[in-house]
């Protein structure tokens, strides 16, 4: 009998049907348990934590998996490990005021158009599945236990969704070249949002230089009276200063006798060091046999 549990995870083997290029029926093992993150969230009680997902897992394929396991209507949503939270493109600047404030809070980024029809999951990755209620969680675990007891067979069959093979890559190729108008609109939105954000940050900074904090200190910010300087300008200025400093030192380099003496000593020390290094290297080479034997 195959094991039904590993540490506190229940095992859920799923059947992978054979395909012509790999004509073997295989089993892919999912590990699942009630979701219990370190930082609790309100939905934990009705969530399941899944480990070792197939690479082609999608919300749809998980939905159908759970449907075949516990019937339709229990699956609500799922979120995958490392998944970037994608939000639909915000509507073009209409009710701008409201949105702007929202931006300031969440620093939401506007995504470029997508180029893949679906994302793949890294091998062995995990996901959190949100079911409709706590009972469903119980039901899933119970069903899995039951299946284990029944012995072999009866495991849900994996249904891969989405395009594969050449179709997938051709589609990606087409999606990689979005309509220029859409692209332009996307960038315009991004840039105006970005500019707004920059603007407000600058305002904050300007405000910051006048308002003392609770301890009564005024934070010194970069830039002069006219406004905060750009980071690059600060960097350039510093490089300039360093350059000037170095020049100053360089001009007076061999003025005193002790300077020359020191330099000579330095050169000599350098040579000793190099010689020692060479000797060490040759020593190392000698350890490999045949290094000094002419090839034949």
């Amino acid at each position, binding site marked *: 009998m195959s*094991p039904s*549990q*590993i*540490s506190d995870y229940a*095992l859920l083997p799923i059947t*992978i049907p054979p*395909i012509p*290029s*790999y004509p*073997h029926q*295989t*089993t*892919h*093992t999912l*590990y699942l348990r009630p979701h219990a993150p370190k930082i609790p969230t309100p939905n934990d009680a009705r969530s399941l934590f899944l480990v070792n997902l*197939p*690479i082609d897992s999608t919300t749809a394929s998980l939905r159908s998996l759970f449907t075949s396991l516990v019937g339709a209507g229990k699956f609500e949503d799922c979120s995958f490990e490392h998944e970037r939270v994608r939000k639909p493109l915000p509507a073009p600047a209409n009710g701008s005021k409201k949105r702007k404030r929202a931006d300031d809070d969440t620093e939401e*980024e506007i995504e*470029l*158009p997508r*180029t893949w029809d679906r994302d793949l*999951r*890294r*091998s*062995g990755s*995990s996901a959190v599945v949100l079911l409709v209620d706590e009972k469903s969680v119980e039901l899933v675990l119970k069903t899995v236990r039951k299946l284990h007891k029944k012995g072999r067979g009866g495991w849900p069959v994996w249904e891969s969704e989405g*395009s*594969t*093979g*050449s*179709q*997938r890559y051709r589609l*990606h*190729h087409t999606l*990689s*070249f*979005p309509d220029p108008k859409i*692209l*332009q609109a996307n*960038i315009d939105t*991004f*840039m105006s949002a*970005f500019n707004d954000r*920059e603007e407000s940050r600058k305002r904050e900074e300007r405000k910051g230089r006048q308002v003392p904090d609770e301890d009564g200190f005024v934070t010194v910010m970069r830039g002069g009276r006219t406004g905060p300087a*750009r*980071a*690059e300008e600060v*960097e350039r200025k510093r490089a300039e200063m360093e350059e000037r400093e170095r020049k100053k030192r360089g001009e007076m380099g061999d003025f005193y006798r002790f300077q020359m003496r020191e330099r000579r000593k330095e050169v000599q020390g350098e040579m000793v060091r*190099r010689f020692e290094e*060479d*000797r060490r*290297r*040759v020593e190392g080479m*000698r350890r*490999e046999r045949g290094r*000094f*034997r*002419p*090839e*034949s």
Partner: protein
Amino acid sequence: MTQLPSKRRKLGHTPSAELTQEDESENVYDAQSAEESADEVAIPQSKQAALRPKHSQAIDDAALYAGGSYKSSLFKLQVDELLAEVQPNYEKRLTGVNEALRKLKTFIEEVEDCDPVSVTEATKSLLKSHKITIPFPDPKPDRNAAYKLMYSRPSNINVVGSYALKTMVKTEGSLSIDMVLVMPSAIFQEKDYLNYRYFYKRAYYLACLAAGLQEKVEDEFVLAFEYLHGNSLQPILVVKPKSDSKKSNKSYDIRIIPAVPSGTFAESKLRPDKNAIRPKDNHSEQSSLLPPTPFYNATLQSDCNIEPYLKLQHAAAKQSTGFKDACILGRVWLGQRGFSSRLSDGGFGQFEWAALTALLMKGGGPKGHSVLSPSYSSYQMFKALLQYLSINDLASKPVCFEIENMLTAKSNLPMAYDGSRGQNLLFKMTAWSYALLRDEARTSLEMLNDATFDQFESTFIIMSSQQLQRYDCSLNISSTPKQVETNSYDHATKERIFAMRMFDVLHEGLMDRVKLVNVQLPSTNSWSLKSSSTPPQEPLLISFVFDPANIDRLVDHGPSAEEKKKAAKFQKFWGEKAELRRFKDGSILESLVWSPGSAHAVFREIVTYLVTCHFGAEFSNSLEFVGEGFEKLLPGGTSSKNFEALKQAFSTLQNQIKDLEGLPLQLRQLSAISPQLRYSSIETPIFTFTQPMIRPADILIQFEGSGRWPDDIVAIQRTKIAFLLKIGALLQEVDGTVVIRVGLENEDHQLQNSAFLDIICGSGAVFRLRIHNDREQTLLERHIKDKSSNHREREDAVSALSMYKKTFLQLPLLNQSISTHCTRFPLLSSTMRLVKMWFNRHMLSRHVSEELIELIVARTFLHPYPWRAPSSTMTGFLRTLSFISRWDWRQKPLVVDFTGTMTTKDVDSVNTRLEAWRKIDPSMNRTVLIAASNHDITGTAFTDSGPSKMVAARMTALARSACKLVKEKGRDLDHRALFASSTADYNFIVHISPKFTGTQPGKNSKPKFKNLEVQGGADIEMIGLQPVEQYLQELEKLYTDSIVFFHGGVGSNVIAGLWNPQKAAPRQFKVNLAYATKPSKHEDGEADEVVIDKAAILAEIARLGGDMVSRIEVQH
């Protein structure tokens, strides 16, 4: 006494300074003066130390503090190691030799004298009594000769040569010890030097000795005849100890060489300009009118001079402490270049080296001054001799020692005439071997003067004489004509005469097309006492080094029609091929016109014609050319026409963009970063008006700096997209035929470049344009330094920065350098392509970046030592492979200096970096290869993303086995064998359906993917589509830690995979294992360990591959 050395040094210094002036090189002077001062310091205290080489470190230390500049300390240390390594342990390796020699001596002394007998009698009696055939040279002696042959006890027996001088060098085979038997002068007469008489007597003497020894030594030794140095005038007796135990490392042989006391024959009669072989029908007394027989004369003299030369060398060794080691260095150097005293190996070996060195310590310079100073160190002496050899042309200006200048006939043979011993030291050399020796000397000297890089390996370790690595083309001639006419009276075998004729014809006919012509005479072997010597069976081998600038010239200009004499000579040489032509500049010249073709084709046509013309048609059919096969492997041939066309298209585009009005910022420059734009892509770019290129060529655009770029990396990436859209629109406005598309990339990496612009020109050329903005670097660096960001973000920034540096900083520089050098070295392009193909065929191309391969190949051309830059694809390819096989990447970086501006300090700093990497990452999990150039001191620009240690080791192993094959097969090598790869080592193979492997486009102008119904404009949609490549990229991302994938690039129909062995063992279950697992089987129902689920992963790979994968094969 104490004053003497310093005086001598002063004397010696002058010629050394002269030498360096001639060379016009500062380096030599520095190195020499440094070494000299080293010696100065060392002499007083090192009497004892010199006896024990291990203690030489004391000298070095002293030199270090006293001498100041000590550029070559690494080189010197390595030379010391070499000297210690090559010298056999005389006591251990040659135990029993002295005893054997003593025994032999006693035996020889016991051999009974023979009374004088006639030639016929001698032959008969020896055959009858001992079954020994007398090794008479050709022509055999006259049966009715009046003189008598005899044997009497040798007047002296002596051990000479490197054993006596203790300058032996370990070799693969057995060590030879030379034992000289001085024949009593009583058995010779004054006139015996004439007409081979001496050599007949000598042969009989040797045969008698063999007969006498045969029975006595039967139990311990085996006897055989051999020609000394392959010279058929000088048979010798080789005594080999019977190996009682199978210890091959103790093998040695004793060569018994008959000699005569010096002065037996008059030196004046045996000078190089004298004749000693009189024609039979000519009895006139005027021998001075007969053509001279220098080879014969010198051979005779060399028999007289064995002992005098031993004395000379002894004296030299006593006089100079560096002499012996200089001889050993010379011997190693010659050996690695295939030279030895044997006639078949050029006739310049350790003896000639040592004797010449000894003579040059006495004279040879202007006004009889010495060229070498006895106070030179061994290395200085070695180098000075190389310099002497390379500067002086001893063929046109013979050198004479201790004798007034002699008048000699003009000849293409070199001469170093030793007056006091009356012998031309270089008599065994031929015109070609001398040219080769000088070329090698020149190359080595240049190499030793290169102070930036360590040249120790190239000088002494690498075997540079391997046929296929050394020569661009080899010509096998399997049959020699029965009779070769000659107007020389001198002694020479038929093969030698034929070789000389052949050389003269080819040398004259090929003109400046070739840099070197070398003829390899078949070597002779030893033969048993009972048989007669057998003529060699090997074919004659003629090798060529091309001059790439001239080799494929189609029209040769001869003398003008007005120069009647020259024109007649030209016509006679070229036969009916010579024709009179009128050229554009109005001149009327004799000329030759060859049919157009590749370098090899033109070359073959000329050689075949020359041989037919001068040796007959039936003979030219037996010619067999080796060397062309390699470049035939390249798709689209070696022509750079397609590359040029693309470059042309690029510069057109460049002008168009420059002239664009309304660009948002001032344009700074456009740069190319595609292998297709630097002559190095395996497939040449093919495009026409109707059929655009399949793979876009990457280019970059950079604008003048502006403060208006946003101060945020993501925002910069987006702004770049807006710019691209703008550029595209502007381009389309000015040129209606251009099609443009903005594409997205790196969707998972926000910090990296996120878009490009595909420009499909009307001509069919396709470019992929990206914007270079130097702000990115500062912003990324700030990201990395930013302590507040989390680890993952920083990693992202690090990889983005590395991508940025590679794409926007390093690639343009590399592209520039490579394409410049492709015009400088015409063979660089095809070599890079062929080496890339080799990596592809062995499925390493995903791991070893194209740029890294280009650097490796560039090294073969820019740091070609011990050879010159390759002049054929074959030599370029094989030398590159041999470098890879030798490259100890654990300890040594690859450094390529494109501009010749790197200093020792730069190279050192690369070394230091490598050492630092090894210290922080000794198991080499991150950085394995360090490949630096003058553009990139870090050496990781193109090796950051691979190869891993495993792949690098595989690369080395594959190169090694390839080199082994090349060495074993020699000129019989089937070049295809080097490209055949096996998939047996991989765990599983994913077979790609043939529809998707992508055949070479353009040939039949069919689209790349036949399944995609492409019509008209739809072609453009498919540009840049590489489904298999995309599939692989995804697989690599999905299974980063668990599988290593191998693929042979475009056109390959398999993807191979190896499971990471570290992930094979069952392990404790945890959440983030990064690969698919299943519970490992346990007896009881519960399990706590999991193991990699290979079946599930393979099923995933198959699912993802869909229609592209035809089959997955699990091997083990």
